[in-house]
């Protein structure tokens, strides 16, 4: 009897192992465990046995059933897996095929540098101010201590605007008397910021924006970008100006070895006035800011002229301040190495992608203001 069972078991396990498909495996299962199956038949014999005999034969027959059931389940898993593997193998693709490319956007260097400036100066408590680009001559010149016959006016290569023709959509607009100008610098924002502050509060602002001069050659474009800085407070001196510019330039170029050289100069709206040179060194034949192998003029600055304070509604006997102005395009060129200013305004997508910045390059103090 025991030998019969052993033979049966080994026959069935052999059949399970030999089943090459799920159908064949199922046929084995039916042969063994189906209603007419050999194991089912054996189980049925248990009923006719004596209790003693059943006690011996029962576990043996159950054992055969278990081992065959387990073998069938294991075989089923193996066949399933093989079928899946075969299916996946049929799905194989050439993974070197190109993926669909999403277009790559970019931020213009001028915008990026403006954001960098805003971040650096925010840390020093400077807000960002703006003003119109089509300015009155009063804001652009007169209020800044440049009356009509001031020789400095002639040096500004000013664009003048024709008075707009009367527009029926805006009948309330009065025809302006004096020709407007395209602002030749961001300095008129000084006056506007002072007026907005009301003459009795300290001011710390930067004002980046478009400026215009009727000048066009290899290094000048009729439109360019400037940033103005203005601090009005009590007890402000040239020393504060120097510290602020040093701090700004060090943060902007992320270098500790920035050396500033102040030179006396003249701007009608500051007194005393200073041009600021920054030391550079030569690296691989290129001028790099930092060190002091040579000097590069980057900024105009000075203590706010009393006439300007008065124009802005501040009492010059009580308030003092400094102001500075700097070319943003030039800052970008010095930091990121572009050499042609005119390319800034051409909209060449190749240039924009090469010199532009990722949307994610948001300048932050913690992550760095340079990208």
């Amino acid at each position, binding site marked *: 009897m025991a030998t019969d069972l052993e033979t049966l078991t080994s026959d069935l396990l052999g059949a399970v192992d030999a089943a090459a498909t799920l159908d064949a495996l199922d046929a084995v299962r039916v042969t063994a465990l189906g209603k007419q199956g050999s194991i089912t038949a054996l189980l049925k014999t248990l009923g006719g046995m004596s209790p003693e005999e059943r006690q011996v034969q029962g576990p043996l027959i159950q054992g055969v059933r278990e081992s065959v059931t387990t073998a069938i389940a294991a075989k089923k898993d193996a066949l399933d897996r093989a079928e899946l593997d075969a299916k996946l193998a049929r799905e194989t693709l050439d993974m070197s095929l190109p993926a669909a490319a999403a277009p790559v956007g970019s931020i213009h260097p001028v915008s990026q540098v403006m954001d960098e400036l805003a971040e650096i100066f925010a840390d020093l408590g400077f807000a960002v101010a703006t003003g119109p680009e089509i300015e009155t001559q009063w804001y652009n010149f007169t209020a800044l201590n440049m009356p009509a016959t001031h020789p400095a006016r002639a040096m500004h290569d000013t664009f003048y605007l024709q008075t707009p023709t009367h527009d029926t959509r805006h009948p309330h607009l009065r025809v302006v008397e004096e020709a407007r100008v395209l602002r030749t610098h961001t300095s008129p924002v000084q006056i506007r910021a002072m007026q907005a502050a009301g003459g009795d509060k300290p001011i710390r602002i930067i004002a980046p924006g478009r400026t215009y001069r009727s000048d066009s050659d290899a290094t000048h474009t009729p439109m360019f970008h400037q940033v103005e800085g203005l601090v009005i407070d009590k007890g402000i001196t040239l020393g504060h100006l120097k510290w602020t510019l040093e701090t700004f330039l060090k943060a902007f170029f992320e270098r500790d070895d920035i050396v500033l050289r102040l030179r006396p100069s003249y701007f009608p709206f500051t007194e005393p006035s200073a041009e600021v040179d920054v030391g550079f060194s030569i690296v691989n034949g290129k001028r790099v800011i930092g060190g002091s192998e040579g000097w590069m003029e980057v900024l105009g600055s000075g203590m706010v002229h009393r006439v300007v304070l008065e124009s802005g509604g501040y009492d010059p006997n009580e308030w003092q301040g400094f102001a500075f102005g700097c070319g943003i395009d030039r800052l970008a060129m010095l930091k990121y190495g572009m050499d042609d200013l005119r390319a800034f305004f*051409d909209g060449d997508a190749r240039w924009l992608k090469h010199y532009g910045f990722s949307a994610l390059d948001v300048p932050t103090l913690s992550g760095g203001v340079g990208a």
Partner: protein
Amino acid sequence: MKFTLSWLKVHLDTVATLDEIVATLTRIGLEVEGVDNPGARLVDFRVAKVLSAAPHPQADKLQVLSVDAGDGPMQVVCGAPNARAGLVGVFGMPGATVPANGMVLKVAEIRGVVSNGMMCSTRELELGDDHDGIIELAGDAPVGTSYPDYAGLNDPVIDISVTPNRQDCMGVRGIAHDLAAAGLGSLTMLYAGTVTGAGEGPEVRIDDPEGCPAFYAQGVTGVVNGEAPEWMRRRLIAVGQKPISALVDITNYVSIDLGRPLHVYDRAKLTGGLVARKAEGGEQVAALNGKTYTLEPGMTVIADDAGAQGIAGIIGGEHSSVGADTTDIVIECAYFEPSGIARTGQKLALTSDARQRFERGVDPDFVEGGLGIATQYVLDICGGAASEVTRAGEAQVPLRVGEYYAELTETLGGLVVAPERQKQILESLGFIVGIPRSEGPWQVSVPSWRRDIDGPADIVEEIIRIEGIDKVLPVPLPRLPGVARPTATPEQTRERRVRRAAAARGLNEAVTWSFVSEAEAAPFGGGAWSLANPISEDLKVMRPSLLPGLLSAAARNLKRGAGGVRLFEIGRRYLVDEEHATLGLVLAGERSARDWQSGKAQGFDAFDAKAEALALLAAAGAPVENLQIFGADGLWAGDAWHPGQSGTLRLGPKTVLAAFGILHPLTLRAFDLDGAVAAVELYLDAIPAKRTGTGFMRPAYAPPALQPVRRDFAFTVPEGLAADALVRAVRGADKAAITSARLFDLFERDGVRSMAIEVTLQPTDKSFTDEALKAIADKVVAAATKLGATLRG
């Protein structure tokens, strides 16, 4: 402003080296733009004598010379017609570089004859324009000496940039004065006495005392107007002035030397006396520069009985100018009101050395002195006899005394300078300093030649400038008290968000000109603001839209071979009322290139533009859910948009937040573009500001516990029914249950248009019953039926 080192030393007694002088000039605010030593280029050129000259055997126009340049006879081939035995000229040794063309001379055969160097013309040495022959020096010039030494060319020319406030440094003496104050030596004495003449002075009067407060004149008779002396001509040439004649050169020399412009008239060409008067309207002057100027009333002229003889303080007239045959002259030394000179110069667009000096304000206390010096030069150089001086009017020399506190260098300038040192600096600059015995401000009197000094800040600048502005030490700006607040305005933050959102969506930010051509502006409503003085017609009107500039850029990119162009710009539009913050965006060429997955290349369509508009409006914080679609017609006067494939997104019927669509083919043609070009303009300043003041806390939120239910509805719709209207109606059919409605299919068959809409229903506290769902579906169908739609069976 150029001057030579030797010229400077006429006024400055100094042992300082050139380098020290150059460094000091820049340090005290007289920025050195360049130093050039013309002699340095000519070290290999010598004075040489032509011993003999014989015809060249092979060439008619050449001669074979024997030249002695100090080392005995040398054979030289020369083509100059004036080359002849006995001539003393300038010889370039082999190895010398010819300044004009950079050629290095070497021993060479010219048509078979060996030539050991070159006899040079003035043009070859960049000493003048003459190229008709070789230089002819004086016969007794020492043969063999270095030519730059002989000619005094070893005199460095220093070029400084003089800021508009420093008229006093428009003369060499003023520069010397500043250097002396900076400790580089001492100022020499200047004799500026009146020349006592005989006989009545020239007849001179002033009819325009505002424009010309002082008009002094002195006559000289019997002059010979030959060449100015060598030293004067050499200095003038060195600084770029062409010598003309002794009399003209004298006036130019005094102008550069002392910053004092003068004018000399040929008395024989004058009719009657001279008068400084206002011009009559339309009066014309033929000026010394060969041009004729038509004057406006109010401009000051110097005239005789015949008419205007010059534009006062700016340029003299051709008619009464001096020439070789001039014998009797009138020397004018006047003071003109600076603002009048500036106005006249600006209106006539006429610059001159005289205008530059007068409009900055010459020393009003140096009218008599300037005239004396000029007359003395004339007598010394041209001979003749001087008349008495005629003095019409008087230049006001206002006594300008201001209060000054010595601590201002520290409280304004940030630099501590000892009071004694401050006093010393001011006095060395010509100020007179009165210090009270007890406490109190100093009384500082400003020198007459420093018209720019106006108040204590200027005095601080003078002291710091000389003491060294670079000595100012940095002082930290105090941190502002309290918590740091955002420093950007909400508008600026919005711009930054939109900019970075656009870049993140694959758009490239461009910066284009604020001005475009009239033709480019026309389709976009035309430019309200035109430049009166544009650089070119292409950059003439302030842009009414950002699209023209971007379209031009897109066209350039496509011409360069770009497949697809996605450009945007954030900037201003300039309308008649004001400037408007705007985003412009242009999509041109291929949206996607041909591809193994998606097949053929795809172009852009109006819905690409709409998608960008909505995404960027959302980034800008606009209430995108509440926007309504309107047509784009009427937005601009011109044919900007495709009439059937464009629209505007509005908040209510009037507030346009964006326009989008495909551009009109006629507009595209004007920009040299074809195919479908999509564009968006976002009106950033029309987007309502977010409500503030609620803090950072957000309203409480609990996600719904029950699953949403989706139901599809398909309608046939009447012609002209906008999809948006149907979707809105469906969404509004049951506001409590319907959370969204979305069009997911659209087709047309046999002239019947169908739209399929997926509706999402959100149960709140218990699941929808079949009855409830049926009721909602009925409401949806009813809402659609109102618009003429029919539920499809």
